[in-house]
Structure formats: structure tokens, C-alpha cells
């Protein structure tokens, strides 16, 4: 469900992702065990609404990939089942999200709808879209820099629509993003694959 970058790495690769933004704080740890599947643990402390804590194992699946001469398109599914806690009320938690993305060396586009069911605490549908451009076309051993713009629509939160301009840096298997949202929150995301 943290899907600013692809939710799978390479076979036998482990991925740690952390996201801190206006929706809360998320950390996930995933191990990719086939070319199309990763399994891991997802933890989120939500903010900007009910302060729900979620802890779920998750499975990330590559449903379809298009390998193009100058780009790549993907459809992923990420799903989890575990527990959600809000003010001492423990409930089962189920969520699923789909991520469609297209990436070339210059452009990045993504769209992600998420469906969350936290028992009697909350049921919600979220949407996130991103567009990005790399001003410089970096090679494999260079620092890659992207300018991106993210829009979130989450009716269950206080601020239903939130826009976040951000800068993404990545070098080999290290990714770092920093942004500032329209509801005045600093976004700091990072991902490491090893």
C-alpha cells in the first residue's frame, strides 16, 4: 500500500519503505520471492482523521507488465489482512490497492485506488495519482532526480483533496522523496532494496 515506487524488487531482494505524509506514518518490509510476488509486513499510523493503527501482513503481486522499447507499464495489486486499533478498539483490517504506472526515463505516471475495511472503525476508499518528469536523463551510476506532483483524494480524512509537489532522488537501490502538501504537511519518503 506504500506504492510511490514499485511494490516489488528483484527475486530474493528485500525492500524497506517508509512514508511520512499528511495521511500518517507507514513502514513496510517486503521480500520478493518470485518475479511477480512479494510478501511482507505493513504498519501504518494514520493521521488527519481517525488516528487508526494498522498492522497487516501484505502480499504484492505484479498482475501485468508491458516492456516497451522506451518505457514500462505495470499493474500491481497490493493486499493485506491483519488488525486495526483505534482508541482501544481492536478490529480486523482488510485492504487492497491497485497500482497502474507508466515510466520512461523522462516521464512517470501512476494511479492507485485503495479500499480499506477496518471493521467497525472505518471503511474508506482512497485514490492517489502522480505525474513526474526527470529534468536530466541520468545513467545507472548517477543520481536520478525527478520533479513530481501528487494528488490524493481521501474522503475519510479531514482534507479530502490534497496536492503535494515533491522531489524524488534515487541512486541505484536507494530512493528518497521530500515534498510539501497543500494542507501544510512535510512529506518524507524513503525506500531501500537489498
Amino acid at each position, binding site marked *: 500500500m506504500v506504492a510511490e*515506487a*514499485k511494490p516489488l*524488487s*528483484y*527475486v530474493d*531482494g528485500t525492500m524497506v519503505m517508509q512514508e511520512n505524509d499528511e495521511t500518517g506514518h507507514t513502514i513496510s518490509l517486503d521480500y520478493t520471492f518470485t*518475479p*511477480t510476488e512479494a510478501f511482507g509486513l505493513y504498519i501504518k499510523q494514520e493521521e488527519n482523521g481517525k488516528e487508526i493503527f494498522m498492522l497487516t501482513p501484505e502480499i504484492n503481486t*505484479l498482475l501485468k*507488465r*508491458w*516492456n*516497451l*522499447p*522506451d*518505457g*514500462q507499464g505495470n499493474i500491481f495489486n497490493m493486499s493485506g489482512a491483519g488488525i486495526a486499533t483505534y482508541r482501544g478498539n481492536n478490529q480486523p483490517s482488510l485492504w487492497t490497492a491497485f497500482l497502474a504506472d507508466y*515510466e*520512461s*526515463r523522462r516521464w512517470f505516471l501512476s494511479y492507485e485506488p485503495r479500499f480499506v475495511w477496518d471493521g467497525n472503525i472505518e471503511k474508506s476508499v482512497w485514490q492517489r495519482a502522480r505525474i513526474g518528469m526527470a529534468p536530466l*536523463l*541520468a*545513467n*545507472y551510476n548517477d543520481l*536520478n532526480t525527478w520533479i513530481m506532483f501528487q494528488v490524493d483524494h481521501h474522503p475519510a480524512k479531514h482534507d479530502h483533496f490534497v496536492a503535494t509537489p515533491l522531489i524524488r532522488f*534515487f*541512486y*541505484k*537501490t536507494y*530512493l528518497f522523496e521530500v515534498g510539501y502538501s497543500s494542507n501544510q504537511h512535510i512529506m518524507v519518503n524513503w525506500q531501500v*532494496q537489498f
Partner: protein
Amino acid sequence: MKTKLLTLIIAFGLTAAVSAETIHTTVNGMVCAFCATGIEKTFRKQPEVQSVKVDLPSKQVTITTKPGKTLSDAKIKEVVTYSGYTMGRIVREK
């Protein structure tokens, strides 16, 4: 004269048999460092492979085999596909 010629042919044959091979292949879908890392790591796991170099602008992966070893086209395709990408053209040089 015949003996010298034969010796030269055998020596040349032996040198060729133990020399490393350099293979270039283009990979469709390899657009970022994350993609390239997966491909690089999967090739490095192959016992025949000495080194791997990735060039994103040309979408090219250059594999150097260990002396006397080679990688078949089918094996290269298998590695690229297993990494999640599509293999393009292969060019070999000794």
C-alpha cells in the same frame, strides 16, 4: 613446416577455448536504476558470468563470461525474462 602450422592451429584453438566472451543484449522495459539492479544481480548469480555492466541510455547490458565459459541465447533470454523484462538483440564478441 607442417608441425609448426599444426602447433599454431592448436595454440590458437586453446587460446580461443579459454578466452572470455563479451555479450551485449538490449533489454526492453529497463528504464530505471531499480530495474537495472534486478537484471544485474540476476546475471551475476549465473556461474558462467564474470562481470555485468548496464547502460541505461542504450538499454544495453554487457556480460563478460569467465574464461572458457559462455552463455547461450536461451539462457540470456531466461535470465532477462526471470528478471521481469524482455530481451532484444544479442551481439557477441570474443
